[in-house]
């Protein structure tokens, strides 16, 4: 199936550029790798029939968030810095998390993976995420309260950013 090839292509793109975010020393290069990674994720969303989410991903993440990151990187003129030498706690926490993750994945693989309702008959999958109507119905019925809370959260975040970036003059102790 051709969409399988696309899955592996975009998965490799996403994971590879995610690695580049972590491994490059240049902060601007990290931000641009993040951009490539997010575009790869948006492509995966298209493969999963979530077209609206793919578009939102490109607008919100690739458009706003990465642009904000680049702006701040250039404003602060920051250098990537060397990688940290491993401290004992970091080493313990990292290897513990690694073992947990590998154990989880190995268990999943050993049990033969998750069984979904449409696991064996992929041809009958209805693209539920493709219609805007479905999103609208969910957002304005089942998830009406979370939508309002999230709207309020955005307002609070906006006020918080304004207050944080304001210069308080003559109030040295407030800083």
């Amino acid at each position, binding site marked *: *199936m051709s969409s*399988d090839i696309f*899955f*592996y292509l975009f*998965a490799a793109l*996403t*994971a590879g550029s*995610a690695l580049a*975010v*972590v491994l490059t020393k240049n*902060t601007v290069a*990290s*931000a641009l790798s*993040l951009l490539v*990674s997010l575009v790869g994720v948006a492509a*995966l969303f298209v493969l*999963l*029939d979530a077209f609206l*989410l793919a578009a*939102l991903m490109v607008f*919100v*993440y690739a458009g*706003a*968030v990465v642009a*904000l*990151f680049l702006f*701040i990187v250039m*404003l*602060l003129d920051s250098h*990537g*810095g060397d990688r940290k030498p491993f401290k004992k706690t*970091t080493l313990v*926490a*990292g290897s513990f*998390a690694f073992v947990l*993750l590998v154990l989880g994945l190995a268990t*999943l693989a050993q049990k033969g993976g*998750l069984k*979904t*309702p*449409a696991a064996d008959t*992929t041809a009958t*999958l*209805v693209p*539920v*995420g493709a219609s805007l109507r*479905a*999103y609208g119905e*969910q*957002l304005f019925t*089942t*998830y009406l309260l*979370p939508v309002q809370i*999230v709207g309020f959260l*955005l307002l609070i*975040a*906006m006020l918080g*950013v304004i207050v*944080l*970036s304001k210069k308080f003059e003559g109030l040295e102790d407030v800083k």
Partner: protein
Amino acid sequence: MTVGINEYLYLSAILFAIGFFGVLLRKNTLVIYMCLELMLVASTVALVAFSHFNQTMDGNVFVFFILTVAAAEVAVGLAIIVALFRRRQTIQVEELNALKN
């Protein structure tokens, strides 16, 4: 072999692990922040895959909220980083040890 939910879950786990190790490994606050974003994105991949293969809308709608919260979080976090830089002239986590001891 056709791509099912498991491949998407493996990819999501790999992305999350990369983000997690980025947070552990890097010194620069901005890069740590980018790695946090990577972890959020990894979780959205898993949610959309669940939604697609289980034929429900809930995962897709959750991704909506995750996107919104991530946008708000980035705005506030970067404002905090800029405020920190103004005050301390550095954003390397090793040098931000005012609370140590």
